């Protein structure tokens, strides 16, 4: 248990540190990269819980795909941080109020009195041959098949929506049409002109 605890605290610290940096650094690209760090460390914590499938998928989907596109977009935007900071002082009291309220509530909801090994039994340890990918697949396609299918439909709607909102023929853009370029005839481009030789001046 000893090493596991140390590893947990190391990664938990990285998660909290990364999350804090995400909202406090000035540079949006750096903020996005700290978010990547946070995801990575949370994946490690999931590994400690023997949820290797979720851990790897978190890295694969969030770090490997979602955040790449996110960083991609953030890099192209030139975000004016100074303008974002306008009104910071004015809204600070309200912000602090909400934050304190949330903190109090979080402490009440997930406070220490609800947790501990005496309240919730430690999860069963499985052997090395235990395959939780198989388990998740099993339950996802049987017990939760209906929500799973609905989630798939939601993704389909998202695809349809994204395409209908972005795909459009813009009449002003100029595109290369290779088939027309290849089919072009000499007569269309070159005009042979016959003229008599002129005298040099």
């Amino acid at each position, binding site marked *: 248990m000893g090493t596991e605890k140390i590893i947990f605290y190391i990664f938990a610290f990285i998660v909290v540190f990364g999350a804090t940096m995400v909202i406090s650094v000035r540079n949006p*690209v750096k903020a996005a990269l700290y978010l990547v760090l946070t995801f990575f460390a949370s994946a490690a914590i999931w590994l400690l819980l023997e949820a290797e*499938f979720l851990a790897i998928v978190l890295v694969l989907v969030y*770090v490997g795909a979602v955040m790449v596109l996110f960083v991609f977009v953030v*890099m192209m935007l030139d975000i004016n941080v100074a303008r974002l900071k306008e009104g910071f002082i004015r809204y600070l009291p309200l912000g602090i109020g909400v934050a304190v309220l949330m903190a109090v509530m979080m402490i009440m909801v997930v406070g220490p009195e609800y947790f501990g090994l005496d309240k919730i039994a430690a999860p069963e340890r499985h052997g090395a041959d235990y*395959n939780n990918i198989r388990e998740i697949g099993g339950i996802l396609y049987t017990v939760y098949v209906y929500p799973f299918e609905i989630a798939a439909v939601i993704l389909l709607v998202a695809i349809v929506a994204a395409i209908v909102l972005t795909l459009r023929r813009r009449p002003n853009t100029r595109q290369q049409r290779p088939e027309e370029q290849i089919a072009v005839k000499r007569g269309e481009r070159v005009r042979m002109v016959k003229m008599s030789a002129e005298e040099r001046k």
Partner: protein
Amino acid sequence: MIEWIQSVFSILPEALQTLVVILLKIVAIVLPLMLCVAYLTYAERKIIGAMQVRLGPTRVGPRGLLQPIADAVKLMFKEIVIPAGANKLLFIIAPILSIGPALAAWAVIPFDVELVLADINAGLLYVLAVTSIGVYGVIIAGWASNSKYALLGTMRAAAQIVSYEIAMGFALVGVLMASGSLNLGEIVAAQSGSFFHWFWLPLLPLFFIYFISAVAETNRAPFDVAEGESELVAGFHVEYSGMVFAVFFLAEYANMILVSGLAVIMFLGGWLSPFQGLPQAVFSIPLLGAVLDNGIHWFLIKISVFLFLFLWFRATFPRYRYDQIMRLGWKVFIPVTIVWLLLLGVAVLAGLPPWFDAV
């Protein structure tokens, strides 16, 4: 001497012992890998030279054999120039993020039946996840350099890698369906039988798509628009010099070897011998039998074939245009993989022999 080491080792606490063993294993993988990378660059220059009727390197050492070493030494002593206005920390981190995943993925690659560093049951997913991180090296390098060429290269690379990862992932799903396991060792084991039992045959379109996507993922010709010398000078690593440039270089070649290795494991039966299925008597012939039998040498030979393909592509194909790359990835590869996955599902359900009748 050996006894002394053993006695020191046994004094260590158990956790530390495991750590030492793992570290030694890592060294045992990484050192030969780095050597391979070095001589891959030599092979590249020689092979492309031969294809273009040139000689390639000849001066350093016999037949130019010491050329990679000389290059490495040269790069090590060059100054690392950090451009003005660059983000220093990220500028240095970028090459590390590039090579880290390329090496980390080797942890789950099985070289032979029991010869693997970490035999985890989600090996395929792990490889996919780890290699997907590599793109951060390219992105951060381009952004931190504070250079327009680097940034343009980065934009191209990021879009390209993300696009091809989808096709690659689908191809891997096909392998997963065919073998019924995510463990790379079991995937190889599922292909045993003969040359025609390997998955290249039932998954032929996926095999091609995987390998072409792999070329695109590693930013190699003809998909090297991210570097595109004639357009972007050198793309994302234009501002890098000396050892940091060398690290990018190492990462690219290590990735080439990695994706070749994965292609071998998933489609060409890893360490399995193509002569499997011959009568037992053949394998009992001394020496020749051992060569013909399954073993790590087959794995290495198959990888070399793929690496040769990489070099061959570079020597022969002109660079793809950017929009054509995107079209190929999204409009050709992804639909083909989806259709093939459907067919594959039917085949697996029907237990099509000789591949899917075991389960």
